């Protein structure tokens, strides 16, 4: 019988504001909680994965946590890293390289920003390929605004439609006691919020938070003795279109999800119509809209109409980001781990916005400047 990897433990750390935490403490708190959720402890872990912004980052977190694993992975795919790390963890487990992989994420981006404010020193001038996009005063929001503007031009997408996405996430955040913002908002509230980079308003943008999460991947056989029902990894894939230079993105309205989504669905033997709930990267409202089209939930150009009438809310056709998402609940920089945690909670019936009878959930991360995409298709059973 072939080995099959399953997810047996998930947790978030405390969030969204952790002024008394170091980044390592966020990893540790999330790790401890995810292992406890699984009914395992650090001694059971023989594989470890995380993503951060320094070389040998995973080795540093292993040292901090006192782990000596024989599978270590720190593939950095930006916000989509954790979907890739879980895909790799499953491959390693199924190949017999290791038994139990702990995947963690930790960030104190919000608190660190406060400490650094006004003290930013000179940075080296951008050189090489990076210089070509870096000299024009563009911002992170501006890159996504370029995609939004192009989508509006090609398909007639309206700001009101993008706003529907932010409204849906906020409606979900209202039921999440940990969420950074919980007061309901309307389409008008989004349109009247300050313009940051046309056509994206402040409420089209994710929040900036501290926080982290962790998940535990092991074998189906091992999971039989554990307390939680195993969540199956039915299909996974990742892809990229470019790095940080959005000028190199072949088509500003087509993301890496157009490659990773269909591949992951094919590997799972499922299609978008089989999906009960979607946890998708929502750095900006446009990120969600492009991902919906590219993953195949609607045709290219029809995302605007698709998200209308509360389709993304619980009770709508495709309940999305049921924890409140990065737009309202928590966005510490690389949110991909939170997507996995919420997808697993939905499949266990533990979400604060539970979708009745959810059996198939998708977690799709986007990283960089719309650069990378990674899709996980999770289920309560093997179809």
């Amino acid at each position, binding site marked *: 019988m072939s080995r099959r990897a399953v997810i047996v433990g998930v947790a978030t750390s405390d969030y969204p504001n952790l002024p008394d935490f170091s980044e390592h403490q966020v990893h540790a708190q999330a790790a401890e909680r995810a292992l406890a959720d699984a009914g395992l402890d650090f001694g059971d872990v023989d594989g470890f994965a995380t993503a951060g912004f320094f070389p040998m980052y995973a080795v540093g977190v292993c040292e901090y946590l006192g782990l000596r694993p024989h599978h270590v992975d720190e593939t950095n795919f930006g916000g989509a890293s954790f979907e890739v790390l879980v895909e790799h963890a499953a491959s390693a487990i199924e190949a017999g390289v290791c038994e139990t992989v702990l995947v963690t994420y930790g960030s104190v981006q919000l608190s660190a920003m406060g400490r650094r*404010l*006004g003290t930013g020193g000179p940075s*080296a*001038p*951008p*050189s*090489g*390929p990076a*210089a*070509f*996009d*870096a*000299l*024009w*005063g*563009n*911002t992170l*929001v*501006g890159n996504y*605004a*370029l*995609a939004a*503007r*192009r989508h509006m*031009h090609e398909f007639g997408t309206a700001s009101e439609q993008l706003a529907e996405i932010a409204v849906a996430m906020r409606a979900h955040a209202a039921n999440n006691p940990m969420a950074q913002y919980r007061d309901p908002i309307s389409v008008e509230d989004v349109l009247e919020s*300050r*313009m*940051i*980079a*046309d*056509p*994206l308003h402040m409420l089209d943008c994710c929040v900036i938070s501290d926080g982290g999460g962790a998940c535990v991947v092991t074998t189906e056989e091992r999971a039989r003795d554990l307390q939680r029902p195993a969540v199956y990894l039915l299909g996974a894939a990742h892809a990229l279109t470019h790095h940080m*230079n*959005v*000028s*190199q993105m072949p088509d*500003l309205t087509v993301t890496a999800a157009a490659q990773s989504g269909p591949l992951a669905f094919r590997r799972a033997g499922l299609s978008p119509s089989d999906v009960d709930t979607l946890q998708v990267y929502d750095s900006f409202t446009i990120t969600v809209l492009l991902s919906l089209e590219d993953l195949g939930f609607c045709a290219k150009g029809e995302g605007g109409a698709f998200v209308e009438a509360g389709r993304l809310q619980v009770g709508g056709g495709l309940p999305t980001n049921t924890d409140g998402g990065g737009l309202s609940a928590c966005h510490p920089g690389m949110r991909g781990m939170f997507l996995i945690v919420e997808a697993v909670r939905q499949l266990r019936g533990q979400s604060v916005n539970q979708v009745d009878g959810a059996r198939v959930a998708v977690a799709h991360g986007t990283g960089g400047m719309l650069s990378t995409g990674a899709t996980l298709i999770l289920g309560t059973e093997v179809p």
Partner: protein
Amino acid sequence: MSEQRPPKPRPAPGMDPETEPYWKATHDGRLLVQRCLPNGHHQLYPRWRCLRCRGEVGWVEASGRGTVYSFTIIRQNFSRSFKHLIPYVVALVELEEGPRLMTNIVGCPPEDVIVGMPVQVTFEPVSDEVSLALFQPAQ
């Protein structure tokens, strides 16, 4: 606090052997693109070989004409090099030769910029050694 600090000059590119010819040319008021020898494909930024046919490449001067592929009006940027320029237009311009270039659109109110608008290159010095290729509405 940071509100009162004076603006800084626009950032200039760091040079390396591969990109230096491009930046030296923009300083001399010429916009270069790479062109492959076998098939005449154009590309930017510069690479070792043509990404379409893997052929050898060399530099040629571009016409400087293009259209706005997409744009945004930046209304928030805390960088001291740009804060005083707000609101300003960041755009991707598709050159006549094909490659897309990140740039600023100048010479018209930000609100007048539209996708598909014809534009032409203009050069703005940012230091004694470097001028950058910006674009303005075509005459």
